[in-house]
């Protein structure tokens, strides 16, 4: 208790002592305070207004100078409940979240670049401008986390102060900067007057994520109730399982204009298996779809079972004509469909092809095209596969499917082709290749987390994709042609980083389908120093059929880090409830 009291007394002092230092080098002249966004919701005013005092313009302290995604606001509300004694019923929490995420939200154009964060995708962030900003912000969390917010310059500074008050180590990161994972100790000896990493980060965020933007002003006028009811065509892809197509039926929930119930049926293009699911979703700010769905058939109980309960995060286009996003599950949200929704059309429309590549010189290859509203008469001339590919005949057709036989000229130029049926085009849908030059394992660097009963495991699904070397004749360059997934056998190889650690014996196992299952967490007495089962390994894919020029099977590999659990899971699953 003493320690707690002491920390309460000391922390504000710490925060204060940091502020002038941070402010001094960022901008010497204090600008007039920005105009806030007035809060008009009575529940927000009554629940938050006690501390967040209201001014003459209807602005609530802090809140009026902030905008965020639904996940951002949920995190803030939960922190207020956890640390600041706010008492909310779940219903009140939902109402406040809906109001803030809609009227203090992000415009669709602002949310799009950071959708990967709400969609729980782990990807390399290329939006970090400098090492100092990386050191100040992105050493503990993704930069997408601050970029999911919009704040006034002043409010960004207050956010930095909050970090210093809550997390003492943040102060060190803000001042010293961390270069590529290690201290950049020499930096201040070399140039003591250089702006602090924090100053650099605040300047960047003030410019890249300001409170007032033209996008938000425009969205404030354009935002309308999401009219999403009715039929949608779903195109979905899941690594390791391939492409699915299907229909989503959306019905408005009674008494609301932004909540929906959904029914979806997806059919695999690979093996024809079907999945049916039902769900419920909310749409924040007219475009931010957050939902949950569950399988209607009994699942197998496997971790990667497609009947698992899933969460849905989608970005609905401002004109409400399409939506795209991810439907995901797993403790670390590591499994998921990439999903795209579009409205059905009365005109003939191609949706997908069952193959992704054609070999030069091949004759009579059957290609199945999934489409909708196809006419009763279809001739080979209606179809176009691009230069060098001739449609020999249409084998069969129904209103939703065409099976065609195509010949590929021996001298056809390798590369992606559009598939067209009259005026409907599937862009870059099929690739022509002369030979498979290499195999790439995706993701090319991945992370899996050890786990057991209390700390569920973080899995990783791999996929092997074939490539052709492209026009320049050199493999591993930007013009290489992707040919789609191929059949491989999977294995784990040692990545030699420290002597004799035999990581591959301990980290876990890889299934024939490329799903990595990590071992248990906790110390392992069989390892030196009882170290955990963590380790760095190569995941190797050996092609079953494709050979290199020396007749050896093609191989591809990916770097996999198997590491410890995250005991804190910064995830806001309730936005979908």
């Amino acid at each position, binding site marked *: 208790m003493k320690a707690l009291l002491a920390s309460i007394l000391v922390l504000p002092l710490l925060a204060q002592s940091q502020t002038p230092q941070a402010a001094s080098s960022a901008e010497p002249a204090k600008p007039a305070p920005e105009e806030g966004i007035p809060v008009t919701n009575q529940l927000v005013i009554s629940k938050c207004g006690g501390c967040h005092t209201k001014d003459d313009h209807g602005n609530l302290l802090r809140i009026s100078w902030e905008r965020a995604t639904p996940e951002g606001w949920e995190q803030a509300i939960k922190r207020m409940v956890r640390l600041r004694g706010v008492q909310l019923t779940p219903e009140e929490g939902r109402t406040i979240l809906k109001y803030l995420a809609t009227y203090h939200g992000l415009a669709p154009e602002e949310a799009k670049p950071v959708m990967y964060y709400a969609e729980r995708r782990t990807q390399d962030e290329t939006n970090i401008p400098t090492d100092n900003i990386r050191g100040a912000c992105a050493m503990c969390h993704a930069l997408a986390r601050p970029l999911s917010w919009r704040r006034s310059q002043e409010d960004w500074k207050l956010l930095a102060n909050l970090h210093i008050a809550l997390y003492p180590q943040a102060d060190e990161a803000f001042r010293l900067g961390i270069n590529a994972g290690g201290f950049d100790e020499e930096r201040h000896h070399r140039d003591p007057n250089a702006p602090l990493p924090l100053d650099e980060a605040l300047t960047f965020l003030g410019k890249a994520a300001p409170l007032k933007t033209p996008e938000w002003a425009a969205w404030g006028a354009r935002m309308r109730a999401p009219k999403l009811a009715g039929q949608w065509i779903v195109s979905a892809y899941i690594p390791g399982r391939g492409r699915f197509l299907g229909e989503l039926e959306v019905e408005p929930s009674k008494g609301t204009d932004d909540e929906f119930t959904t029914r979806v049926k997806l059919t695999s293009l690979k093996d024809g298996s079907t999945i049916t699911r039902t769900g419920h979703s909310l749409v924040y700010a007219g475009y931010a779809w957050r939902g949950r769905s569950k399988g209607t058939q009994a699942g197998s109980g496997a971790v990667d079972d497609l009947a698992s309960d899933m969460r849905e995060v989608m970005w609905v286009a401002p004109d409400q004509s399409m939506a795209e996003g991810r439907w995901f599950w797993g403790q670390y949200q590591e499994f998921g469909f990439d999903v795209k929704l579009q409205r059905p059309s009365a005109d003939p429309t191609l949706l997908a092809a069952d193959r992704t590549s054609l070999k030069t010189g091949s004759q009579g290859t059957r290609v199945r095209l999934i489409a909708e509203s196809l006419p009763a008469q279809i001739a080979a001339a209606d179809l176009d596969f691009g230069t060098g590919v001739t449609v020999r005949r249409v084998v069969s057709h129904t209103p939703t499917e065409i099976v065609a036989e195509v010949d590929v000229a021996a001298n056809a130029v390798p590369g992606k082709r559009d598939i067209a049926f009259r005026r409907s085009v599937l862009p870059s849908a099929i690739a022509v290749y002369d030979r498979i030059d290499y195999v790439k394992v995706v993701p090319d660097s991945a992370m899996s987390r050890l786990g057991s009963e209390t700390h569920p495991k973080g899995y990783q699904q791999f996929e092997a994709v074939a490539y052709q070397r492209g026009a320049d004749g050199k493999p591993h360059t930007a013009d290489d042609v992707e040919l789609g997934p191929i059949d491989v056998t999977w294995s784990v190889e040692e990545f030699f980083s420290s002597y004799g650690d035999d990581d591959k014996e301990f980290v876990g196992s890889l299934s024939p389908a490329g799903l990595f299952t990590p071992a248990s967490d906790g110390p392992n007495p069989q390892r030196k120093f009882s170290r955990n089962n963590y380790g760095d390994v190569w995941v190797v894919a050996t092609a079953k059929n494709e050979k290199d020029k020396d007749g050896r099977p093609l191989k591809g590999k990916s770097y996999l880090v198997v590491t410890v*659990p995250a005991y804190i899971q910064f995830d806001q699953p309730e936005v979908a409830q």
Partner: protein
Amino acid sequence: MKHLRPLNKKAARIVHDHAGSGTNDVLALQAPPYTQQRPHVPMNCSLMFTPGWEVDAAGGTAGLCQPVERDIYDCFVSCYWPAAVPDHLNNSPDWASKCAAATKDWRNLDLVFP
């Protein structure tokens, strides 16, 4: 370098390369002209201070605490990896109360959903 005489070819080359640079210090070996390539660190990894929580400064696991449970209270009490391990300071004061010795009772450590 006035009092030093190169004894082998490499040393002679260093002296020769720095003859006209106006500095007497052998900086050539210390400050490479190239920028060091950054190790690949997956998104969201908590790398606050070396070693990081998920990966070390080199992007692997060889430099993590062995085992991590041995050091977990220090992380918890001093709020060392605020994005991966709960902190005693503000957010989760009771996180480790069910777990007297983490190397034995690590199964009792809860997951926290802030």
